């Protein structure tokens, strides 16, 4: 554990120095947790006055009492699904570089020659990817809650967030997604020969998250408690499998001998 923390601390320091990693995430975060919710919730009454939107709401929410509140509930579900983007995006930017960057900078061999164990190394790399992702998700959760509640209270005298769904998404679903994407990215990183190919393949890993977001925006389904619980159960079951796979695939000998030093 001590060695994993050591790796985590060093890598976080490097990430903080690398603006190209955290600036896009910060921009996306601000967009989805402050700007979009503020604009949408603030302009809710004018949105529902649009005849097409009113027609759309009538189709989705039958027998709805207050159209504005029903629309607010719909939007909150949309924000929630965007909250899944961050734990998927950040690991897909950080984790693919985890091993391949060590290979490229010729630091992997001296690192593996220390008494560090494979599990400790992978856990340290996983923390590097998961901790910032969880921290940003948490900040986003707080920001969206603050923005939505402030405007919600000002306009409708209600405090819509947080809900239990949001807690489960933030504290179970997001970390699970983050963990799985990190593990898959580390597997890819172990097998890759250069950072570009690792990040290219890594970007594909988050495609299912985009697909879920796209399906919800397209109206194919709407995120609900049942969906969240089933997804949580499936992802939590997958977590130990990908961990085992990552440790098995991380073969010191293969990584060192199949990698041509620069």
């Amino acid at each position: 554990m001590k060695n994993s923390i050591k790796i985590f601390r060093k890598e976080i320091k490097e990430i903080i120095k690398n603006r190209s990693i955290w600036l896009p995430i910060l921009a996306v975060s601000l967009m989805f947790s402050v700007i979009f919710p503020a604009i949408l919730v603030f302009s809710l009454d004018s949105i529902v006055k649009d005849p097409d939107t009113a027609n759309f709401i009538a189709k989705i929410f039958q027998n709805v009492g207050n159209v504005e509140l029903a629309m607010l509930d719909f939007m909150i579900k949309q924000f929630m699904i965007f909250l899944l983007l961050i734990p998927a995006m950040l690991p897909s930017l950080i984790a693919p570089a985890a091993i391949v960057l060590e290979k490229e900078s010729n630091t992997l061999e001296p690192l593996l020659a220390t008494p560090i164990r494979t599990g400790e190394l992978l856990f340290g790399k996983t923390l590097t990817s998961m901790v910032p992702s969880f921290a940003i998700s948490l900040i986003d959760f707080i920001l969206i809650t603050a923005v939505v509640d402030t405007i919600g209270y000002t306009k409708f005298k209600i405090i819509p967030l947080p809900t239990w769904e949001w807690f489960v998404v933030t504290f179970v679903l997001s970390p699970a997604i983050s963990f799985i994407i990190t593990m898959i990215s580390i597997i890819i990183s172990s097998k890759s020969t250069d950072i570009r190919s690792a990040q290219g393949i890594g970007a594909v890993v988050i495609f299912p998250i985009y697909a879920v977001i796209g399906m919800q925006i397209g109206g194919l389904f709407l995120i609900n408690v049942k969906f969240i619980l089933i997804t949580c159960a499936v992802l939590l079951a997958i977590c130990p499998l990908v961990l085992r796979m990552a440790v098995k695939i991380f073969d010191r000998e293969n990584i060192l001998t199949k990698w041509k030093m620069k």
Partner: protein
Amino acid sequence: MIYAENLTKRFNNITAVDNISFNINEGQIFGFLGPNGAGKTTTVRILSTLIKPTAGKVIIDGRDIKSNGDYIRSILGILTETPGMYEKISAYENLDYFSGFYSIGENRRKQNIEKFLKMFELWERRNDPVKSYSKGMKQKLALARALIHEPKILFLDEPTAGLDPESAFMVRNFIEDLKNDTKTTVFLCTHNLEEASSLSDIVCIIKGKIISISTLEELQNNKKGKRVEVIIKNGPDKFMPIFSEFKEIIHSEAAGNKINLTLENPETINPVIIKKLTDAGAEIVYFNEIKASLEEIYLDLIKN
């Protein structure tokens, strides 16, 4: 300290290391020489438990490497052929990071970081990111990293490559001091034969298999065809036929006043040659047996 027996490593159909055996005592410097692709790096990787041997046995510090990887890695330091450092962080942070993986106290760790950074003249630049360092500075930092936990065994792969002559001299002196002061066992892979001959207690020449393993003196003594240099004041040409009388003389060649002879059994034949030459009226200014350099021996062995 390091005992290897019938060590073999195969990668698919290629045998990188073929049934090699050696024994290195504590505090010895083991010069490991061979052309590119001879199996030097593979051997170092096996000994440092980074890869597993296909066959054979290795005992390091009394423990089998197969089941004591963590312990073995805790007592060795390694300078790889292409040593990489984390370029975005400082030299101090690099050493702090790597030394943190070993069981040494916090105070000693900090003392060692300071000691080695000062020793390799990097202390003034300790807080600069490594990417701003020259190649030689990075090489010195990598050496400091290998030494930071005071290892019992040090694997050095081309330790002076990329260093300016002054730094290379300093590193060589340092390796000698290590042997004398700390009893550190040094496994030295090098192409620099001068370095190997000046530092090594044992010289091992490998090309997949071990071609030769002995002390430099033994290598020199075992070399076929010793060289003798003779300088004759009154011109060498008229004395050249004398050398054809000796079956022990393999080759003779004159250049100016100097004659170079390649011969067998110099201990017995040299006095006879001197007598024959003086009897024939040669004014001998200089007669000396020249020890073969490691380079000559190495090239000879590798070629054959």
